[in-house]
């Protein structure tokens, strides 16, 4: 688990421990470069997460693990958003490892921001990360920004507009919702990630 700040680190760790995993929380580039599997949680905003990754020299470490060694990585919430090219929130460049931009969800009468609560997932295609997760099952979301659906989108959700709820491209994956707080659906997603072996 990459320690890029944020208050949900403990709850993500506990969710993994409930599944029998023993995650290590670290900011050490050497540990991250050598990891077998990586999670990048994040809450708050994209800019502080990117600042921590850059200041601690974690970007080259993540790149080494993900691209040179093919290690699976799952970004959660802001940790997913920073995988994209750019976020409107604070006008910050992300890692750019997934094509696309993160934009603010629309504000409209009857449509509240942040998008906070349980909302339905709509799978777009079969994927090992979606094993056992059916269309319409709900996950817990808390966010005001989201990536548009694209070629890498495995499942969408809708709040004012459709957005990417789960993405994967080769060994890179991201979820906009919080699997650590999404009941059985979230536990299933994390369990799927823990045994995911991308080709």
């Amino acid at each position, binding site marked *: 688990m990459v320690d890029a700040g944020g*208050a*949900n680190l*403990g*709850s993500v760790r*506990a*969710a993994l*421990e*409930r599944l029998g995993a023993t995650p290590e929380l670290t900011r050490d580039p050497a540990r991250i470069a050598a990891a077998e599997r990586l999670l990048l949680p994040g*809450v*708050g*905003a994209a800019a502080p997460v990117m600042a921590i990754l850059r200041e601690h020299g974690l970007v080259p470490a993540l790149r080494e693990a993900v691209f040179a060694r093919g290690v699976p990585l799952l970004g959660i919430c802001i940790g997913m958003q920073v995988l994209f090219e750019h976020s409107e929130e604070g006008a910050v460049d992300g890692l750019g490892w997934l094509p696309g931009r993160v934009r603010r969800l629309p*504000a409209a009468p*009857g449509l*509240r*921001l*942040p*998008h*906070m*609560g*349980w*909302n*339905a997932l709509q799978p777009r295609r079969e994927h090992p990360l979606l094993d056992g997760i059916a269309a319409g099952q*709900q996950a*817990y979301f*808390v*966010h*005001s920004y989201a990536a548009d659906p694209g070629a890498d989108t495995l499942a969408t959700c*809708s*709040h004012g507009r459709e957005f990417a709820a789960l993405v994967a491209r080769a060994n890179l994956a991201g979820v906009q919702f*919080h699997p*650590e*707080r*999404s*009941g*059985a659906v*979230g*536990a299933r997603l994390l369990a799927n990630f823990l045994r995911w072996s991308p080709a």
Partner: protein
Amino acid sequence: MLSRRIIPCLDVRGGRVVKGVRFRDHVDMGAIEELALRYRDAGADELVFYDIGASPEGRAVDVDWVRRVSDLLDIPFCVAGGIDGVERARAVLHAGADKVSINTPALQQPGLVDALAAEFGSQCVVLGIDSVRDPDGEWRVRSYTGDPARTRSEGRRTLDWVREVQQRGAGEIVLNCMGSDGVRAGYDIPQLQAVRAVCTVPLVASGGAGAPDHFVAVFREADVDAALAASVFHTGAIAIPDLKDHLSAHGIEVRRA
């Protein structure tokens, strides 16, 4: 489509859940972890833990139980009571709470809302507002509501305060309508409608739930995002799975656990 949320509120004192909201004689209801899991299993969408000893007694929430609950729970939860500054909020959030709810400290020091939003993001910052309709017909906020002897009017109009805290960065508002609280005669629909009209962040109704139809009414007529209740859940008067069946039968989107 976003589901409407059902939120049981558990009063916590000395590491135990107690019954008797705003009454003096508190009955022990059990260990926090046990009740948290029971409500999770029943299909609660979120939990609020209210540390009732914290604010009137001038001490802050101890974080050990927050950590234990966080490690167990796989649904979101909020901690209220005794959070009077950034450092207390940090301790509670880092112990695993998804949100903190502030009430009296925000009235004393409105800049705290801005500070918490800047530090942790608006999504973590819940504003609890205790509100009463005064004899002149205006809704006004109350502080120190945890202790009837110390409760006082702040002179602030509720609708002004709702607007102000959103500008300052509150990510959610829990409106506790004190006039209907504990009476079980239904939520205060007119007040919630008035607040809804000026509230663009999620709004949680609190105070007055007594029957499943009260939940139907508050979602339909006041368009709130969530409904919070305590005694009807704790006494078993309403079971959450039955409540969700009822809401669903009335065309209200809910999560089925």
